[in-house]
């Protein structure tokens, strides 16, 4: 029997002979519970403090739990959510990461100055390779599925234990395969594809499952677009969101990853829980209306929605390609006077590249503002929080009630083209409407 990409990666990482084990080592099946070796363990400034606390509770002074991380090269700490320190308590949390990194000798601790939004930063720094098994104390860890890695978000205790043991328990997920066919229209990108998908299957449509993104359209997608899609697998309840590795992946990884890796492929006779085909030829840019990411409509069908704020950035759409798209729309235009347009490059490198390409000048001359990399407004932290009755269009990934501020505010999710066009129009529009 053939196996899906996720099944192959998990099977290659298992360390035990737990339930469902095939004595001939022929792989794992959905529903199996296995103990697996991890390649990278990640946490950020809001999740690491608890992870570190639980890590310390493991150390009973004897036996194999020594108080040292399993491999200092494989533990990554990124200060991105409430940074640069948004208040005193956040400053204290960042200090916990700093002290732990020093104590454990962690080369991959990213503090303000080196830091970026974690899921833009790790691929850029070559820290995740195809075929890896990655766990992170952040739900959007699934982003690295775009590299053909099995990457999934977990909580702080799982990550604290993984930091010590280098292992996690996993239930092997079913895989659903989504095949994208047809030809993309102008302005339709990865964000529109994943929102359209979530709109069709619902916020629990991929619950406990791996989403495999496939089809001819996928081959033409840039890495940035793939990261965007994998990033939002969790918004459909997915455990992971994977792409097969191809030339685009190899080219991206070739310049960044220094260690050897294994490129797994799904077998032709792999078994899937579900197939979904999406013809993209008739797709327009879409918007997810409040208050669920599956409340998706074509941008031309949502009526007149006036906005107060536009956010362009995040782990979903904070890459250079996203900023280029936004700049294309904003060039020689002005943000509407009542709109705050906040642009957040995902990493220092993205920011520098945006400066050198003249994009930052475009944003500022248009009347937008440009922030240092941070998750900030995505979770209502800082750098663009909403008051009661305010509305934002945002390239972020969640629009639950109160996500970006007051529980009586609203968030509309979109790709960078619609967000930029809406900043100009003062209401949510298709870029062609400008």
């Amino acid at each position, binding site marked *: 029997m053939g196996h899906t990409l996720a099944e192959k990666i998990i099977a290659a990482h298992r360390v035990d002979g737990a339930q469902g084990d095939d004595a001939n080592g022929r792989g794992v099946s959905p529903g199996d519970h296995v103990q697996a070796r991890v390649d990278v363990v990640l946490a950020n400034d809001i999740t690491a403090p608890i992870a570190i606390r639980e890590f310390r509770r493991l150390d009973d002074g004897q036996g194999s739990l020594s108080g040292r991380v399993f491999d200092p090269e494989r533990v990554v700490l990124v200060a991105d959510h409430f940074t640069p320190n948004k208040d005193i308590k956040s400053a204290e949390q960042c200090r916990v990461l700093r002290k732990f990194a020093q104590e454990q000798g962690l080369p991959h601790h990213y503090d303000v100055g080196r830091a970026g939004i974690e899921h833009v930063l790790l691929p850029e720094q070559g820290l995740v390779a195809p075929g890896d098994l990655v766990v992170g*104390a952040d739900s959007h860890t699934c982003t690295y599925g775009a590299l053909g890695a099995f990457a999934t978000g977990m909580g702080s205790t799982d990550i604290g234990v993984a930091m010590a043991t280098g292992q996690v328990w996993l239930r092997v997920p079913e895989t659903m395969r989504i095949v994208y066919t047809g030809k993309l229209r102008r302005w339709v990108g990865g964000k529109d594809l994943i929102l359209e998908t979530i709109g069709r299957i619902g916020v629990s449509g991929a619950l406990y499952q791996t989403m495999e993104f496939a089809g001819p359209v996928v081959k033409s997608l840039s890495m940035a677009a793939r990261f965007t899609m994998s990033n939002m697998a969790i918004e459909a309840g997915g455990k992971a969101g994977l792409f097969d590795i191809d030339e685009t992946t190899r080219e991206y990884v070739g310049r960044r990853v220094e260690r050897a890796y294994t490129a797994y492929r799904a077998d032709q006779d792999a078994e899937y829980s579900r197939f979904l085909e999406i013809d993209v030829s008739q797709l327009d840019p879409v918007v997810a209306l409040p208050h669920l990411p599956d409340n998706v409509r074509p941008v031309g069908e949502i009526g007149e929605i006036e906005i107060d704020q536009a956010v362009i950035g995040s782990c979903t759409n904070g890459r250079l390609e996203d900023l280029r798209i936004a700049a294309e729309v904003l060039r020689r235009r002005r943000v509407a006077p009542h709109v705050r347009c906040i642009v957040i490059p995902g990493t220092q490198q993205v920011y520098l590249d945006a400066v050198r390409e003249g994009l930052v000048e475009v944003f500022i001359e248009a009347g937008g503002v440009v922030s240092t990399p941070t998750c900030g407004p995505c979770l209502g932290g800082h750098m663009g929080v909403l008051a009661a009755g305010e509305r934002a269009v945002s390239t972020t990934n969640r629009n639950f009630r109160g996500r970006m501020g007051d529980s009586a505010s609203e968030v509309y999710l979109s790709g960078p083209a619609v967000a930029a066009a809406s900043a100009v129009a003062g209401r949510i529009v298709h870029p062609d409407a400008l």
Partner: protein
Amino acid sequence: MTIEGCVWTCGDHVDTDAIIPARYLNVSTAEALAVHCFEDVDAEFAGKAAAEEEPRIIVAGQNFGCGSSREHAPLAIKGVGVSCVIAKSFARIFYRNAINIGLPILVCAAAVEGAEAGDRLCIDLGAGTITNVTRGETYETPPFPGFIMDIIDAGGLVAYTRQQA
């Protein structure tokens, strides 16, 4: 393990931003988080839950705990004294987190449909039975896989991992 309490209901897709708003993620203890549990959904939830004699049991629809992976969510729920969460289904990260920190959870659509706010429930976690004492109904849930029951019995993942080491 026997658990008792009074039902507090909520609907589908209750997300972790609703359970604990992001502005409180700059603290990390159950005590500090508990006072803000469900604050933007029901400003009186934490106060009432702490004051009531019987612990609350959250009875929820589909996909409880969806959204962010923040462990602060089950910590807040546990910290405010909720004795168990029963849902039609759980978001997968919340499910793991609850087990890992020793917050009892069960999947049982029938029990959810048969319960109303204020009902008294008596739960046998190991046997997988939920008795609605108020309505005189008993429901069964599928057992947890063996080692997950071991984690629950140990009181959480850290205790379990120490035992295994």
